């Protein structure tokens, strides 16, 4: 019986690569979304809410709920469940609406 999802589907992915989450290295597979790469590293939260500063991550997994918003390569409000991970991506926990530097 399969012990991992990759074993179940007989995956033979291309070479893995590194992205960073708040400076911490995370291994990603080509074709995985940013959210999937973070889940595979056991990271479930990469956003804090605007009002109560609570952690959030992927919820609906299909781009509908916007709970997985992250700052990816300096760009806030990207839906991590839709954006494919690329080598060297820099993911930063998005605080609030992601535009704090604009003081709005």
């Amino acid at each position, binding site marked *: 019986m399969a012990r991992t999802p990759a074993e*179940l*589907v007989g995956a033979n992915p291309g070479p893995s690569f590194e992205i960073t989450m708040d400076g911490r290295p995370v291994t990603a597979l080509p074709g995985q*979304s940013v959210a*999937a790469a973070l889940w595979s590293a056991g990271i479930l939260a990469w956003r804090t809410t605007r009002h109560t500063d609570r952690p959030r991550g992927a919820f*609906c*997994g299909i*781009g509908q*709920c916007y709970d997985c918003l992250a700052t990816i390569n300096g*760009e806030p409000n990207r839906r991590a469940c*839709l954006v494919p991970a690329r080598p060297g991506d820099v993911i930063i926990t998005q605080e609030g609406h992601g535009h704090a530097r604009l003081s709005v």
Partner: protein
Amino acid sequence: MPASASDPYDLAVIGAGSAGLAGAVTAAELGLSVALLDGSPQHGGQFYRHPAPSMGAARPEALHHDWAAFAELRRRLERSDVSHLSGHHVWTVTKEDHGPWAVHAVTGVDGTAERSVRVRARTVLLATGAYERQLPFPGWTLPGVVGAGGAQAMLKSGLVLPGKRVVVAGSGPLLLAVATSLAAAGAQVPAVIEASGYLGYARHPRALAANPHKLVEAAVHGAALLRHRVRLRTRSAVTEVHGTDRVEAVTVTRLDRDWRPVRGASRQIECDALAVGHGLAPQIELATALGCATRPVADGTSALALDGLQETSVRGLWAAGETGGIGGAQLARSEGELAGLAAAGRLYGHPVREERVRALQRRRDRMRAFADAMAISHAPAAGWTGWLTGDTEVCRCEEVTARSIREAVTDFGARDARTVKLLTRAGMGWCQGRMCGAAVACLAAREGAVEPPAERRPFAVPVPLSALASLDEPTGIRPDAAPGVDD
């Protein structure tokens, strides 16, 4: 592809899942020029969601039912000259008097590629599917609580799990499929918690007898759950999630027939994730923005009202699959094919094989009957609001609590979801009420009759202002536009 780049397509299909694929290939095989638009980089929709080619999955079918049907649709698509426009997020559909339809999309993996595209077409098939319906409970915003469909989507495409020990909860047959997939992929699934029961199906013997494949499917899931030692607990719900930064355990409480938690009938289950969902809601905002008629479904959602050939109340706009009511991939394929045949008949007066049409209609009606039985059996009963505390966040985006919503109703006289939204901002955030709409509508109805939330959203996906600003630009081929697409 149309004869000339400035000609409209015969048919624009929105959504490349089971319904959209079937509609697109059917129409193309009858000689129609077809554009198939989908937000995802890959076709298949949510049901046939699968890993990117770079993951090298030798057995993608291991996570699917009926993969052969998808493989066949894919073969037909490859043989056709359908223009497959992936990464196109459709935000609105418009029609000028006597002119063609205009399908407006923004491009990119998440619609932020700063390019707007307008596809013109003489007819449109809407096959946008559904998203998961959620009912809130204390702790459901904690990391580790994920949609049941969400967990399956992440598993199918990213080959990842939200945790090692995952409780599956909510209502509806999707839960069995999710639990089976998670367990097959190596997760430990201590329990499936279903708020309804399965005895409700027994009240619809004719629908059951006419759909033996559904019973086989249920038996396959049942056997898999047994094999993986997954307990199925009916008439119960997760009424609280425990943990500080992530899920550590859940409280499961027995429900009465009205889904009201039974006092003292609770137990805790340790887990590091919870996959939860209460059925699916048709994604119909493109159609409702055009004024298409809807029909209430027995599960409390709204679906598009369609005629015998899948046409909406707006002439020239067809719909298939979950947009007409949740019914699964097989039903979606039949409906997509019907709509493709109907569009071809309308445009070119094809003597559309009457026998094929009748066979498809019979199959559709049979599967719709089962879908209706399913909707009734798993419909949320009003007592679910009994598991909310004042602090429970109902609207995840705007962090609006159940207390604020009840105040809006009791102190400020709100009687509907729209008024609650104006008073509290529930449903005004990023997701525009997709996650909280059903719950807010129930609370606004004061635990009385459940009123389906208004599905009217002027934009189906977020649109950059630059896309709106460019609408007045004259139509013309832009150098960066995809072939066959104007603007």
